[in-house]
């Protein structure tokens, strides 16, 4: 008698959990909310961004959406939306001039996007993005290790629109994939081994305006703010002093 109840019960439990798994992780994304709903979420009590205009809705793939916007103070901002747990969620947003990198899948550099939105008054001609690692060396127990300095750059035209995005060049991807793999292997596994993580690469940016200046594009001079998840990262602004120029 007990067995007769137990087996169907177990089957139902398995079916329900499969259903939940499908619903939250596998089901195709629903239609993206319209601009009014987006506005409402961004200006809502949690985020408090006074939105004047939603500039565009850009699908980077079918589960990741980039929305540039303008605030009532004429500040230009960016926001990232993600289809997660059967819901379109705001995963990160910020205002102010800093470009950001969005790592949709942190293990896969080909899913990384650099995203920006500058006020048109800055008259930008093009942006230059950098992948940088400082030169370094170490000698431990007689073992020498030299880390070559890395500086790779990539230029993106600013275009007519204030906002834009670009994926990571394939040469960066090649380098990052090799470097990540090496870091993974260098992690010793053991209780008694000290491990100081070696220096990592980082991303930087520069903006060049129509008159050739590479000053920080500061118009309008407002303080940016935002809230971000772990999958986004600000790029470091670089002066001409910070980089090697031929």
């Amino acid at each position: 008698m007990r067995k007769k109840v137990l087996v169907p019960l177990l089957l139902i439990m398995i079916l329900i959990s499969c259903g939940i798994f499908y619903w939250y992780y596998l089901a195709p994304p629903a239609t993206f909310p319209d601009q009014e709903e987006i506005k409402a979420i961004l200006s809502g009590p949690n985020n408090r961004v006074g939105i004047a205009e939603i500039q565009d809705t850009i699908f980077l793939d079918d589960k990741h959406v980039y929305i540039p916007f303008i605030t009532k103070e004429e500040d230009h901002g960016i926001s990232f939306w993600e289809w997660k747990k059967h819901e379109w969620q705001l995963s990160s947003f910020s205002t102010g001039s800093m470009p950001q990198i969005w790592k949709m899948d942190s293990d896969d550099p080909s899913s990384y996007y650099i995203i920006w939105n500058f006020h048109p008054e800055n008259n930008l001609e093009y942006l230059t993005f950098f992948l940088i690692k400082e030169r370094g060396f170490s000698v431990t127990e007689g073992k020498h290790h030299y880390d070559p300095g890395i500086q790779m750059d990539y230029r993106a035209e600013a275009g007519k629109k204030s906002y834009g995005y670009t994926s990571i060049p394939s040469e960066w991807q090649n380098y990052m994939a090799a470097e990540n793999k090496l870091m993974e292997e260098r992690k010793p596994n053991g209780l008694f081994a000290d491990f100081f993580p070696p220096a990592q690469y980082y991303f930087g940016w520069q903006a060049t305006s129509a008159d050739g200046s590479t000053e920080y594009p500061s118009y309008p001079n407002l303080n940016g703010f935002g809230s971000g998840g772990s999958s986004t990262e600000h790029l470091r602004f670089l002066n001409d002093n910070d980089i090697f120029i031929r």
Partner: protein
Amino acid sequence: MNAPEVVLNLLAWGAVFILARRIYTKQESKPIIWKLVIVILVGLFSFSINLPYMDQQIKLAILPLGVWILYGIYSRKNEGISWDQYRKYAWLGFFANFIFLAVSLINPLIHCAIFPGNEISTYLSNSNKGKIIQTHPSADHKKLDRDSLLIQMDSIKEEPVFSEKWYYETFESGIERSKAEERFPYQLARTKAKWGSGIDPMIFVEQDGKGLLISTGQKQLYFRAEKTFLKKGE
């Protein structure tokens, strides 16, 4: 894939299987087979210390934690008869730690014999798809000269890595950190190490195109050739 390691580990598991079978055939009251498999696996569980050995860590098992746990479970069951049945398998599990220790002691020696650590061909066996990526702007655009690399393969020699010297050399003229030229401004990408070595190296190329700096997870090596294996790029 590290082929020698895979083969040796299979042999080690084979040895454990043979020993378990020998115990089983000699036993009068037979235990349940799926339970004895679990007992061996739990018996493996031990407190161990890690010791450095030939660029890797080896595990020396000290306390048989798994055996103690199994003793706790089985000693009171059936007035000790269960423990009599499973005791030998629990200790076999602990003993297996030393079989695997032997494997990790032998493995680097075999690996060295098949894939000599001081030969470039170990790290660079397939350069057909090789591509030069410029990783620092202090150098000119260059392409890989495959023929030059292939011809010189046997004559490329290992030399010591002078990490400290290379690091400070670039600053000798008193220039700023960011303005210094890089000694290794190219990456050689998309090549493969010898099949079965399990090595996944990262390779940098020296500015003059004659030196290769190879990093693996464990160490770094420097190789030097007579002639350059870079040619003018677009």
